[in-house]
């Protein structure tokens, strides 16, 4: 349980490491499985545990249903960081979805690293239905790391390509 005091000191710490512009808050998208991590996050809530409010949770049946293209879409939509979380090995509701996902994501993160993404922006965890406190730690840590990196400007700049196309007036002026 977090007391008001420790909370405010936490906030201070956050501000200290901040890289982004004034008032900027990291956007984290968490893809979680329905059976473990979502229930764990729910437990954190019902236990009234406090954590940083930067995470948007997207619930899927299983980590095995989380396609890398979802992660790409999250970055395209402006996410500064992505978390993928599901059941611990052996606990998957569909018995092997997370084992398959583990291989897929081991590769995918290497690919993302190879194209120049800092892997603090793409993180993974196992959080069971009983691990509300772990969920809190994971979210705080992921958020802090992304905060330290600042906004994902490289990716977000890719979305602004069309804004750089000169408008008609500018073209006329140039002519």
């Amino acid at each position, binding site marked *: 349980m977090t007391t008001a005091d420790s909370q405010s000191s936490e906030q201070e710490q956050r501000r200290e490491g901040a890289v982004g512009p004034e008032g900027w808050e990291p956007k984290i998208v968490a893809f979680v499985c329905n059976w473990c991590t979502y229930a764990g996050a729910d437990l954190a809530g019902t236990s009234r545990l406090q954590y940083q409010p930067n995470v948007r949770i997207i619930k899927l049946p299983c980590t095995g249903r989380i396609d*890398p*293209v979802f992660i*790409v*879409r999250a970055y*395209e939509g402006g996410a500064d960081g992505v978390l993928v979380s599901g059941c611990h*090995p*052996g606990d998957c509701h569909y018995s*092997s979805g997370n*084992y*398959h996902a*583990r*291989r*897929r*994501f*081991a*590769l*995918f*993160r*290497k*690919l*993302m*690293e*190879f*194209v*120049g*993404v*800092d*892997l603090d922006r793409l*993180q*993974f*965890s*196992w959080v069971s239905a009983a691990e509300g406190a772990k969920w809190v730690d*994971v979210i705080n*840590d992921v958020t802090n790391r992304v905060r330290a990196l600042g906004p994902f400007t*490289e*990716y977000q700049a*890719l*979305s602004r*390509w*069309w804004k750089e196309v000169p408008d008609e007036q500018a073209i006329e002026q140039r002519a």
Partner: protein
Amino acid sequence: MSKGLQDIARELLEKGEVQVVVGWGAVKADPDRTRPILVTDPDEVGELVWNPRCVNNLAVYLTKAKSDVQALGKAAIVAKGCDVKAITGLIQEMQFSRDDLVIIGVACKGVVSDGSLWQGELTEENRDLKCRFCDVRTPRTYDHLVGEEVPPVDAEDDWKDVRELEEKTPRERWDYWQEQFERCIRCYACRQACPFCYCTRCIADKTLPRWIESGQHPRANLAWNIIRAMHLAGRCVECGECERVCPVGIPLNLLNRELAKEVAVEYGYRAGYDSEAPPPFATYREEDDQSFIR
């Protein structure tokens, strides 16, 4: 060498063992190049050639993406060792069985990266990159072999191309790939040439929902190139066709090889060698590395 090949093809067609031979033919307008041809008439086997300009991986013509070829009947295919790796992968993925196919293997000392560089001799300068560490210069499986067996290159893949980029900073890598992907015109030639892109409906063409933006702009191009590479992970045999056909020269095989290296390191697997092996992403081990998961 072409003669031996033509004799084999004629016999197969005359005896009716196959109805079509997929092979390489000359390009009359441009002697530096060869092209894929389909021979159905035994009197036309003279069209078939085999030389170091025969770069195309013809395995793509065996897939359902080229169902018009399948419709011709049983096929024989002329294949270098690296092409046979693609065929092996397709058998592994149950696209057809070994018995559905006659393989006319060609013993190969290498192909040239550009037909115009061929002056009658293979050198370090004109030899294609993929031939540097070739361990299948004699195909691993065939029904007929053209030429004498050739021993494998006496050196192992050093992944030098991949490591050079890995050693750069994330920012440098990002800028490097942006410069590459920005030029992508979304022609999908890479997909059309790849033996493993046989999906009847590619994710890039799906519109409900549209997973990959169709526009030709940096954000969409990054998504396309990442996801294409991901779909080939653990399957790609590094034949380099995608890269060869890319009209804007994006080094696609470098992306493929990064993934191939990781699969080799993590799971001790290289695609195209064993049609019985479970594909690495259709299986798992309980003790697979999970040091990246907290």
